[in-house]
């Protein structure tokens, strides 16, 4: 065993990169669920985003446009979900699962001509001055733009949900849609907005895997990241701060266990492999989960 081979600075830096896809997807789903909608189609929207990201970035030669296309792809797919569940009042659980199946198939179809193509490089931002700081510079200030966008979005969502009137209205819709409706808030419209924000975020998360993390298109490449994002939302008690902790913890332990394996740690590999899941669940449960939004998963109809 040679633990000195693990460079803690590099480890922390990889943690931020490894966590970003889950963080983005989970953040979107958090807003959706706070609005009282359960969208189990995160995996489908992520993989569609991953495919759209490759397609748009390859065609335009610009990685940022790839991310924009991925957000659009995820958004369109979630729009479908919104129409089905909010206007046609279909069951959210069944529709969400169907959305995942649909997304996996659709992405395979879309990505058909793009297997093996490499997307344009996504530049890292060496933030001037900050990136030269001794320790923090290497850990936190030499990443690509999406890592910071993810962090910025967490702060923005936190501010929106807790400090703005619009955020309060969104939460009211999630807590009790009948009461919100009685007060005159457009429940369905607000939920449409939340669902589409969630779709765009999931698309971005998926594209981060296909454009930065891997970077290449392979069918089914998100490999369950969407389900992990869904789980983290619940374990984080629908709170953005804990969500960030959960995502970084999961990403961190994932990276750490690979490093420990490479360093030859004398713990059976099976335990190391399950450690990200166990650690994330334990920590977030110990923090005591929050209460789930009152109307989560329930179908809303104005006449009832």
């Amino acid at each position, binding site marked *: 065993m040679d633990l000195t*081979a*693990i*460079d803690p600075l*590099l*480890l922390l830096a*990889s943690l931020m990169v*490894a966590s970003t*896809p889950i963080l983005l997807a989970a953040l979107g789903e958090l807003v959706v669920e706070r609005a009282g909608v359960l969208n189990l189609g995160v*995996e489908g929207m992520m993989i569609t985003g991953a495919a759209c990201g490759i397609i748009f970035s390859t065609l335009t030669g610009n990685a940022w446009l790839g991310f924009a296309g991925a957000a659009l792809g995820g958004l369109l797919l979630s729009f479908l979900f919104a129409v089905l569940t909010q206007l046609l009042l279909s069951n959210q659980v069944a529709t969400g*699962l169907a959305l*995942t*199946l649909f997304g*996996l*198939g659709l992405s*395979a179809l879309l*990505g*058909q001509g793009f*297997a*093996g193509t*490499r997307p344009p490089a996504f530049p890292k931002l060496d933030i001037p001055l900050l990136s030269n700081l001794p320790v923090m510079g290497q850990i936190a200030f030499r990443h690509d733009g999406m890592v910071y966008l993810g962090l910025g979005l967490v702060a923005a969502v936190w501010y929106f949900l807790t400090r703005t009137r619009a955020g309060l209205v969104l939460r009211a819709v999630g807590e009790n849609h009948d009461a919100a409706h009685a007060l005159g808030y457009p429940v369905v419209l607000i939920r449409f907005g939340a669902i589409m924000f969630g779709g765009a975020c999931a698309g971005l998360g998926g594209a981060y*895997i296909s454009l930065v*993390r*891997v*970077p*290449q298109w*392979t*069918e*089914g*490449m*998100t*490999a*369950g*990241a969407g*389900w992990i994002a869904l789980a983290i939302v619940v374990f984080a008690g629908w709170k953005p701060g804990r969500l960030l902790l959960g995502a970084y913890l999961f990403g961190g332990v*994932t*990276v750490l266990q*690979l*490093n420990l*394996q*490479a*360093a*030859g740690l*004398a713990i*059976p*590999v*099976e335990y190391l*492999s399950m450690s990200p899941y166990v650690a994330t669940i334990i920590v977030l449960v110990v923090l005591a989960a929050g209460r789930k939004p009152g109307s989560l998963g329930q179908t809303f109809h104005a006449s009832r």
Partner: protein
Amino acid sequence: MKRRTLLKTGATAAFAAAVGAPLRAQDAPMKVGFVYVGPINDGGWTQHHHHSAKEMVDHFGDQVELVYQESVPEGPDAERVLTQMCLQGCKLIFTTSFGFMDPTVNVAAQFPDVMFEHATGYKTAPNVSVYSARFYEGRAVQGNLAGHMTRSNRVGYIASVPIPEVVRGINSAFIHAREVNPDVEFKIIWIFEWLNPAKEADAAQALIEQGCDVVLQHTDSTAPHAAAQEAGDVYTFGQASDMAEFAPKPRISSIIDNWAPYYIDRVQAVMDGTWESVNTWQGIGDGMVGIGEISSAVPDDVKAEAEALRDSIAAGEYHPFTGPLSKQDGTQFLAEGETADDETLVGMNFYVEGIEGEIPS
């Protein structure tokens, strides 16, 4: 995860059964089924099986009809897919992943008139053959190159699922890396999957950060190559397919699976009525294992040495597991000049001396 794959395969199978059943006339083309563990464009293992399957179809033209199912999970779902293929009228079915072994044997017992070919397994039956390639021969060449090309003397190895085939590959690569470079060390990461690009990228990243400047992989995607390319001076090897898009650097060579001749042989045998259950294990010499071009990033003398090793293995003059060799715990594995027999190789579940760590059980 399970649920969606279940729904997907279930729906496809039901559709296939409804549509395919009436097509069982005598003069109809012979249906040949393929069950794949990954998508047919994974860039590696499954893609090459599918490519070989299509070569086989090109060879026979209208005489055969290809039926395939991709991304079939290893486990009970595979039995359903296989059963449906049988009901659909397939005469010969190839199952192309180790984890399909028990499903193949189980379904074969129910359909004695259908012939099965299982890749990389070891259980046979009167209507089940097994076939595999001696990938460890290719690993020997990779190990030789890795030993020469590393400057940090740390070689990373992204291992997939702990089965003898993978362990054999690690041992073979290690033996030949040590032979040319006594200081070389292997760092091994098991990811417990054949294809998971994000995890492969993370594993490659972890290895590179720990100073590995050559990364071998027994997983199917090109993600480790991309990670190596970004890191700069790191060398990699194509797995299952050439992965030439990353040549000449980081990809300096590759192991290519070439199943087409075998597929053509076996389909022909069913047509002629001469099919018998066999246990086929072919290597570089038979062409089932190909060594991809050694790229210009490798110095000429190193390249020549690796090619000489490849040729001597192909000619049968040299066996990659030739003694003296010891097991990890120091006990003797092979005496001076002794070569490992196939039975030992098929069940290999130990590391050779010098490799650190344990094989997950």
